């Protein structure tokens, strides 16, 4: 068990900057998720922690040791790979036992530990099979068991659920969360799936172009996004981003509609962010503004109304019992407590 410190960590391949001088302090026993679109540097960051990639500059600290020059095997980490990285020529038992054998654990100790790990991921009955005889979810469990069979200082998980089908992903996510709370080991988890990040993380680091955009609890990055990128990346459906300006303390859309009062200085260009959940749907005439429905979608647990708002389309979430048709007119009001304003040039948040 240990904390991880990254100090001005940089990875460059020639001109291309994969990770741009990032510093990050991951606390002991913390579950930290690196979240971002593909190519944002999250996997590279993790691979540098694992020792599979050498940093161009900067330092990686695990516990009180600078591990830059340590081989992966000497860093005392365990890693779960996206493609599982199982050893196809070994049985499941041998797969799970490998980290113990490679580290010269006594034979008498290997059996009980493998069995315990297999039990934790419910694989006991498959121990003498080969990986190819298992399903995707079972293979992922083998990879997990192989990670937890030792007690490493750090768990590293590289998109461990992304090769599973949607239903299994939800189940495994819960299992993963349960396991991580039980084991209490510092974990770095890479994903591009914001739901995984929201549900699993103690803290999330949202990355883009090799730079951490925001570091915070799931609550913070969802309800208090630091900039336009985080706001647009987190949440499903994505946050509505409405172009306009601030005039005389009111947000005015590019179409000229005066929307809401904002306690901020006037500016020529601004982007108003509002989540679908913070747009209340009313009958026509009863909201702040009347809009025409472009598409009405019923997801079962709620309804999504894509409405034509001048030249832009925005999505509002309605009650699950709401029934409307395309081209119907509805009233929309904004929940003034949860509005976000951004500068379109710098993409920074403007606090209101």
């Amino acid at each position, binding site marked *: 068990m240990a904390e991880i410190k990254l100090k001005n960590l940089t990875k460059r391949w020639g001109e291309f900057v994969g990770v741009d001088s990032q510093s990050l302090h991951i606390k002991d026993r913390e579950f930290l998720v690196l979240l971002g679109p593909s190519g944002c540097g999250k996997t590279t960051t993790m691979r540098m922690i694992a020792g599979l990639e050498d940093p161009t500059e900067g330092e990686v600290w695990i516990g009180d040791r600078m591990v830059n020059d340590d081989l*992966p095997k000497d860093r005392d*980490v365990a*890693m779960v790979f996206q*493609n599982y*990285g199982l*050893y*196809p020529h070994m049985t499941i038992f041998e797969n799970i036992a490998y*980290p113990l054998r*490679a580290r010269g654990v006594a034979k008498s100790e290997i059996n009980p530990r493998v069995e315990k790990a297999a039990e934790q991921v419910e694989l006991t009955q498959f121990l003498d099979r080969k990986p190819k005889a298992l399903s995707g979810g079972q293979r992922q469990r083998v990879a997990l068991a*192989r990670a937890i069979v030792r007690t490493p200082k750090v768990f590293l998980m590289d998109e461990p659920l992304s090769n599973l089908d949607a239903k299994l992903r939800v189940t495994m996510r819960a299992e993963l969360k349960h396991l991580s709370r039980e084991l209490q080991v510092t974990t770095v988890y890479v994903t591009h799936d914001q739901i995984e990040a929201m549900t699993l993380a103690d803290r999330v680091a949202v990355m883009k172009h090799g730079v951490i955009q925001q570091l915070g609890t799931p609550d913070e990055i969802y309800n208090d996004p630091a900039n336009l990128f985080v706001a647009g990346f987190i949440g499903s459906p994505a946050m509505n981003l409405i172009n306009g300006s601030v005039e005389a303390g009111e947000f005015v859309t590019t179409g000229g509609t005066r929307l809401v009062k904002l306690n901020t200085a006037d500016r020529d260009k601004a982007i108003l962010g509002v989540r679908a959940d913070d747009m209340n749907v009313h009958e026509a005439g009863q909201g702040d503004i009347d809009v025409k429905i472009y598409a009405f979608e019923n997801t079962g647990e709620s309804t999504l109304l894509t409405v034509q708002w001048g030249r832009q389309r925005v999505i509002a979430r309605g009650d699950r019992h709401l029934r409307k048709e395309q081209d119907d007119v509805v009233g929309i009001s904004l929940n003034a407590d949860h509005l976000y304003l951004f500068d379109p040039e710098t993409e920074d948040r403007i606090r209101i």
Partner: protein
Amino acid sequence: MTGKQRRQFWSAVHTVLILVAIFIMLVPIVWIFLAAFKTHVDVYQLKLFFTPTLENFDIVFDDPYRLGEKLFNSTFVALVTVIIAIPIATLAAYSFSRFSMRGETMMLVIILATQFVPAVVIILPFFVMFRDIGLLDTRTGLILVNLAIVMPFAIWMIKGFIDGIPIDTEEAAMVDGSSRLQVIRNIVLPMAAPGLLTSAIFCFIIAWNEFLFALILTNKEAVTLPIGLALFKGEEGDLWNLLSAAGIIIMAPMFVLALMIRRYFVQGMTMGAVR
């Protein structure tokens, strides 16, 4: 023609074409096979029915032909070549596959390009060199030459097999506590085993069949089977029945190996595909 008839017609055409191809390929082999069991008298007649004899096989192992010595030379040279070539080629192929080096592509091309040089061009330098350092007519000399011939093939083939091993698997083993050499021993070698065996057999076949260098660089002690065939050109003309018997001795191991290589070849090719 109805659709069904058309299908039957084309399927018949396929069968005939395949039979023709097989016929063309097999005729010489069948002829040799028959001749090997014929007496000297029968051999010039294209008889399919005759009294088979094993006499030819006795003769070729006796004085003056002593095919046994050549058989030993061939086996020894081919085996030692493979035993030396495969480990070295595996390490080279692993390096080419997994590390990026300056001029890597160039090196790979050069390695392959050595095979584009016609053997006759370099055989004289070889002869002069071997004469000066006393390697003429030695098995050691032949092994060296064969190594130079099979290594490029082995490196390219094995590299292909190693490329097919997912890098994740190796990285997992490294994180799990293995050094690079342990990764190669515990993960790469077992996973590439079908490929290694295929390459080994391939190299063995090349070394076994090698003719030109053995012809020029040996004359008595280190003569191999293919060169041994020339012994059967006697004063009474070509001794086809003996030639054929020796031919079968040369071919027999190749048949067995080809059967083995076929099974592993398919396995080797599909290995990378099933993750």
